[in-house]
């Protein structure tokens, strides 16, 4: 907590405004959150609501809460406070849980109508007191069963509301042990949320989610092989000699591979970085019957004798992701330290000596926090594999134009719609490099744009080619303000760099400007630590700088009458795949 008084914010590239609302005392979370988020490169401005005034603040649109303009609203309900209300509800025990759930939902509704903030709703720690002992489970109105049911309701309600995320405090308490979680004296003395020593855990859990809403998510796990993914050394022991499989010495590695394959299925890319000869290293992935991970599960496979930091850099370039979006797993402390030293942004967990503890050691760090889960995530590994095949074709084509033509690209450009919203928001949160203004709009902001078609023209773009579907890969948000058409946001997944998606989109932007009677397109570049790639984006299309700021930011203007349409090598289509005549997206 002391660190919170003198926290270094110099390395922070973005600010997140976090409001804390609780029916318990949570003052210590303020410095803790500030410190923990600063370590993740996020400057936190924290608003602490009055004690037990959640409803008063949320239902009053003129409250200090809304004046604070929060990005994230954290609602922490304590079981001790809930218990008191439960005791007071003797007349209507059966309806108590429903009432609490309905009240929570009405808080979410009020928040959604007054702010576009993400809501981080805590569930309730199960009480340690049991009125019937084990029989509590058979009595729905017992306190224990009521809290358990309420937690299920919170999860179900949140599943239907993209802007609501769950803060699983119950998971923290059961991890620590409910016996130690709450210090009842501190509840008596100052209505403490939990025992002080566990508050850092609560803060860490909140910080993990807040960092994820700010786009700080892990996208790739880089794996060593020998004694990390299997027991033994493939180069010495051969495919028959390594330990892998459901029994004996191979079991811990088998389990780790399952854990990693589940990560891959939810959209985390797996890469291999091994000191081995390539053919030797890949052999088990192709032929070993007990291997869980196969060649197709690995997005980038690097096995050579170069230093690992160099190989990790090259994996990063191939995947086009940030170093801070990578986790490196290696059993060898020397390699871990080498990577930490050379690439401090990469997350390098300590691995315990016993491989049986690998999965636990990784899971305890809660590295893979997410704020959404879409079809795109399930398919991500396949998308990257298709990309590798495209690169093969590209190396066989000497002429880039011929190559692009041969891809047979089809592109959809459409206004935001409910069906694509979660992916749109995900892209808004995750894109760092090809992102002109890095405005992290949340789902409520996007809905507001959809509902104001005269003010906003919010587009997404989807690209497919003969190798597969790239999915939704770009977002362009426009604001017609005649005589100007303003570009509020322009971002693209780096997966599709160099295909001319932005040229196609620019042609459409200028077309839209003409439709709206605008003479100019005005765009802005706001520099961040990661988006240098698009510094000269507007210049490429003939824009002229009208304002240049000391921080490197600039405003660019294009005279629509001078615009020369860009050559594009893709066909505009509708969602159904038909050729676009005029899809009315403008």
């Amino acid at each position, binding site marked *: 907590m*002391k660190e919170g*008084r003198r926290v270094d914010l110099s390395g922070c590239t973005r600010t997140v405004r976090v409001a804390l609302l609780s029916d318990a*005392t949570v*003052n*210590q979370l303020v410095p803790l959150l500030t410190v923990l988020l600063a370590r993740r490169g996020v400057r936190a401005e924290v608003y602490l609501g009055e004690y037990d005034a959640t409803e008063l603040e949320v239902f009053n649109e003129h409250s200090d809460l809304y004046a604070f303009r929060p990005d994230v609203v954290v609602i922490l309900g304590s079981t001790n406070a809930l218990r008191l209300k439960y005791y007071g509800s003797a007349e209507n025990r059966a309806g108590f849980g429903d009432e609490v759930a309905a009240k929570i939902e009405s808080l979410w509704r009020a928040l959604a109508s007054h702010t576009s903030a993400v809501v981080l709703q805590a569930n309730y720690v199960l009480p340690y007191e049991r009125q019937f002992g084990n029989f509590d489970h058979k009595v729905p109105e017992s306190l224990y069963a009521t809290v358990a049911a309420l937690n299920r309701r919170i999860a179900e309600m949140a599943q239907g509301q993209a802007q609501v995320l769950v803060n699983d405090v119950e998971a923290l308490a059961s991890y620590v042990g409910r016996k130690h979680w709450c210090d009842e*004296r*501190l509840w*008596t*003395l*100052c209505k*403490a949320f939990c025992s*002080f020593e566990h508050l850092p855990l609560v803060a860490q859990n909140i910080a993990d989610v807040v960092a994820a809403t700010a786009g700080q998510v892990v996208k790739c796990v880089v794996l060593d092989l020998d004694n990390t993914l299997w027991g033994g050394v493939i180069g010495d022991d051969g495919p028959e000699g390594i330990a892998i499989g459901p029994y004996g010495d191979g079991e811990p590695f088998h389990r780790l591979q399952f854990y990693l394959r589940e990560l891959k299925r939810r959209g985390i890319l797996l890469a291999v970085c091994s000191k081995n000869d390539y053919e030797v290293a890949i052999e088990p992935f192709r032929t070993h019957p007990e291997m869980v991970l196969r060649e197709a599960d690995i997005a980038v496979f690097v096995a050579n004798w170069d230093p690992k930091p160099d190989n990790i850099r090259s994996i990063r370039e191939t995947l086009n992701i940030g170093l801070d979006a990578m986790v490196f797993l290696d059993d060898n402390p020397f390699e871990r330290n080498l990577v930490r030293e050379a690439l401090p942004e990469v997350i390098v967990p300590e691995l315990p000596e016993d491989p049986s503890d690998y999965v636990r050691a990784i899971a305890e760090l809660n590295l893979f926090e997410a704020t959404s889960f879409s079809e795109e995530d399930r398919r991500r590994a396949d998308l990257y594999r298709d990309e590798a095949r495209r690169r093969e074709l590209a190396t066989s084509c000497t002429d880039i134009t011929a190559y692009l033509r041969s891809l047979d690209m089809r592109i959809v450009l459409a206004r935001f719609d409910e069906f694509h919203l979660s992916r749109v928001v995900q892209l808004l949160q995750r894109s760092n490099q090809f992102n002109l203004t890095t405005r992290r709009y949340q789902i409520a902001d996007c809905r507001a744009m959809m509902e104001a078609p005269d003010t906003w023209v919010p587009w997404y773009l989807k690209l497919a080619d003969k190798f597969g579907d790239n999915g939704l890969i770009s977002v362009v948000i426009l604001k017609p303000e005649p005589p100007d058409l303003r570009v509020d946001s322009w971002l693209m997944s780096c997966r599709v760099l160099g295909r001319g998606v932005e040229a196609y989109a620019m042609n459409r932007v200028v077309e839209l400007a003409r439709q709206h009677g605008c003479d100019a397109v005005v765009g802005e570049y706001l520099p961040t630590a990661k988006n240098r790639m698009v510094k000269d984006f507007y210049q490429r299309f003939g824009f002229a700088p009208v304002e240049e700021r000391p921080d490197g930011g600039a405003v660019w203007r294009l005279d629509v009458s001078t615009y020369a349409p860009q050559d594009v090598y893709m066909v505009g289509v509708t969602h159904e795949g038909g050729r676009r005549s005029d899809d009315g997206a403008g």
Partner: protein
Amino acid sequence: MERGEIERQLTEIFREVFDDQSIVIRDDMTAADVKEWDSFNHINLVVAVERGFRIRFTTKEVNNLANVGEFVSLIASKLG
């Protein structure tokens, strides 16, 4: 533990909790004498003392503390 040693360790805890290296405790010192000593920091202080001396107070003991002198006596009685 000698009363003087308790006072020495307690001073360190006061300085830590109130983030002020100049604090010198006295027997008749109360919350009114220390700027940051509000009801909330009072609990932080109590928890820090419990941890520092490896002792445990009851709710009533914490609520009934009148000044630092009583606090030292209470700690001494717990250490036995």
